[in-house]
């Protein structure tokens, strides 16, 4: 069966520090991968999506970047975190179907 792993679960980082969040999917190949963010009191905002290795599309301009070094690995990064980067980050995958399967999320607090 397919599973999605996301870590860490929680993270507290100072302003200006770097960020690396990792997401891996098991039990499938060539998934579409997504990074979403849920800011406090807001809905789920799509940040990045990837349809293959090295193929990254950004939905909104921001302080973050994404990479897909392997088929089932998706990484969200930042060189210097801002306070506004705080939020709940979710990785999701689909095999082209209609429904996304989400990871358990990372709660990022920038202080």
């Amino acid at each position, binding site marked *: 069966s397919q599973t999605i792993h996301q870590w860490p679960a929680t993270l507290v980082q100072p302003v200006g520090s770097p960020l690396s969040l990792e997401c891996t999917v098991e039990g499938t190949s060539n998934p579409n991968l997504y990074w979403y963010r849920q800011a406090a009191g807001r*809905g789920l905002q799509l940040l990045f999506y990837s349809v293959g290795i090295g193929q990254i599309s950004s939905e909104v301009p921001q302080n973050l970047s994404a990479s897909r070094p392997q088929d089932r690995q998706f990484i969200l990064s930042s060189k210097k975190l801002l306070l506004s980067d705080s939020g709940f980050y979710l990785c999701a995958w689909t095999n082209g179907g*209609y429904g996304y399967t989400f990871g358990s999320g990372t709660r990022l607090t920038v202080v």
Partner: protein
Amino acid sequence: DQQVKQNSPSLSVQEGRISILNCDYTNSMFDYFLWYKKYPAEGPTFLISISSIKDKNEDGRFTVFLNKSAKHLSLHIVPSQPGDSAVYFCAALLRGGYNKLIFGAGTRLAVHP
């Protein structure tokens, strides 16, 4: 530009009664809609969906209604249970080079005894 709107940030319902969560959309290109349920500190999980060729889809206690002319859908939970307390997200599918889900802001449902 919010293409999917959930105008009620919260809803409180008594156990056993009906919960009705509403969602409005603006883009006529959406042809598939989903509801997700989210508990705190967890990822959303798929609940129920509906294609635009239907006006109703039912799964146990959960029913989704779609009114295309009004660009409105709703999720009914009958009877509501305390375990239903969560945030519910409405999502609409935008087809293109890949399937992109556009989410609403969510509605926090509290079911009290």
